[in-house]
């Protein structure tokens, strides 16, 4: 089977970016990635753009074409496609781009993820995020998006003894990492006390258990591995890719504390890469809420089901732990411009595998995993990458 490599990465600062428009953000990320990769505009075979809800955030659909245009590629008539899977929109763009090269159809693709969330008021942003949940049978009856993850947390605490302190430890760790990331939305540390006593959002989750509303974009350039040397020496291979789906509403799942979509996607990716979870050196997981990170490290097979809280307590997932998780600061501290997240996670893994992660660098990072989830777990996309 053909091998696929990532040869260029680009990312904007994440945050409340009043001066930057939707087009400016994706333009910035895209051009950074293209310049980084060494390709020329005429080398691009296709573009894949992940954006959850540009329609509700900036009133604009038809985003694939928009991005091709804003990038200056319309006169070349490059195929441009938008992918959507709620918060997994970016990860889906990565996978679609990957599959198109894998199949032999394309040699070089540009993949971007973008979300501009601050042009609408906070209340609107929250309601738009809630469209990731089941509108008819969850949101309609008053369940908010944090409420859904809070119900996962409550059950996890009930079944496995996970504590509010464990949740706080995830937030504290991710902020500590984000403080070292110049592109992160929040570059300041927080304390356990602050995290545990933060304003309640949906018991047992408080403000500091929740990822923020963010503007931002990220982009990568993917190339058939056998052609990559033409453009660059910095070649990171994708050795595994997986995707899974599950019931849209949380109440439809087999087990409330397990994201079976993640388990399924992970199995697919590990099998393709022919590796085990213990071979992973670092992971960017989808911590839309602190509990999500705890479930993720269980569902990805890093620890047994129910032991995520303990793993965090034992500092296994810190920068100098045995399995650093979310060295970028995660969605919590880096920010969560929804459609951009899946691509931003890949950007961080690539930086680490290239040795470009500066103050966050993990020594001997050889194999990294990016894990992107949509909604309360109805979509999951995973990519495993390896340094050459």
């Amino acid at each position: 089977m053909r091998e696929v490599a990532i040869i260029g990465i680009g990312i904007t600062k994440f945050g409340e970016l009043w001066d930057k428009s939707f087009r400016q953000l994706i333009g910035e990320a895209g051009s950074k990635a293209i310049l980084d990769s060494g390709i020329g505009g005429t080398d691009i075979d296709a573009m894949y753009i992940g954006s959850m809800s540009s329609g509700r955030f900036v009133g604009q659909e038809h985003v694939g074409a928009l991005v091709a245009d804003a990038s200056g590629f319309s006169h070349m008539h490059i195929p441009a496609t938008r992918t959507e899977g709620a918060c997994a929109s970016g990860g889906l763009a990565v996978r679609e781009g990957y599959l198109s090269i894998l199949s032999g159809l394309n040699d070089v693709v540009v993949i971007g993820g973008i979300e501009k969330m601050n042009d609408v008021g906070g209340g609107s942003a929250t309601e738009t995020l809630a469209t990731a949940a089941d509108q008819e049978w969850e949101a309609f009856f008053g369940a908010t998006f944090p409420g859904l993850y809070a119900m996962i947390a409550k059950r996890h605490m009930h079944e496995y003894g996970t504590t509010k302190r464990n949740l706080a430890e995830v937030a504290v760790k991710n902020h500590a990492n984000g403080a070292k990331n110049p592109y992160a939305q929040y570059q300041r540390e927080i304390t356990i006390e602050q995290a545990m006593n933060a304003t309640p959002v949906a018991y047992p989750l408080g403000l500091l258990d929740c990822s923020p509303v963010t503007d931002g974009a990220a982009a990568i350039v993917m190339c058939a591995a056998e052609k990559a040397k033409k453009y660059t020496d910095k070649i990171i291979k994708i050795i595994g890719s997986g995707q899974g789906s599950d019931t849209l509403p949380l109440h439809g799942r087999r087990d409330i504390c397990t994201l079976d979509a993640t388990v399924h996607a992970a199995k697919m990716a590990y099998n393709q890469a022919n590796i085990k979870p213990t071979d992973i050196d670092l992971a960017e997981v989808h911590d839309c809420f602190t509990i999500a990170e705890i479930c993720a490290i269980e569902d990805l097979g890093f620890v047994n089901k129910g032991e995520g809280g303990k793993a965090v307590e034992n500092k296994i997932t810190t920068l100098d732990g045995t399995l650093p998780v979310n060295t970028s600061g995660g969605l919590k501290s880096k920010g969560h411009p929804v459609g951009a997240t899946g691509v931003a996670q890949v950007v961080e893994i690539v930086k680490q595998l290239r040795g470009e992660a500066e103050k966050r660098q993990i020594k001997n990072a050889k194999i990294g995993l990016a894990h992107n989830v949509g909604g309360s777990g109805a979509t999951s996309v995973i990519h495993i990458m390896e340094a050459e």
Partner: protein
Amino acid sequence: MKSNVARFWREIPQRYNLIGNKCDSCKRVFFPPREACPYCRRKSMGKMKECKLKGKGKIITYSIIHAGPEAFEEQIPYPVAIVELDEGPRITTQIVDCNVSDVKIGMKVESTFRRIQEDGYTGAIYYGYKFRPIRKEK
């Protein structure tokens, strides 16, 4: 002109009376009703029978919402829970008629008919189910 009325009118049997359906093949009950049974798939097509759920169940997990959507702002803080109905299906619903601190995993609850939302002050009112602790037997 008010939109959305058709979308919510269509679901009145579900919201007012918990009408689900049952696969004639494997006898599993679904709520809301499904076009086909996910387990029997094509064997179940045309064999899904309407059935009314009793509205009794127990709380599997819950949260207390402190930051709610506009339609629910006046009810903050309110409990929302996943309730497993006696017939099997699970639903997401608000818990009412008790103190927020009384809500527990395992609590037995029953359905009640309440206002869920309205389409603004001039729009249609959407009624539906909320769940309350089962009244003590005499």
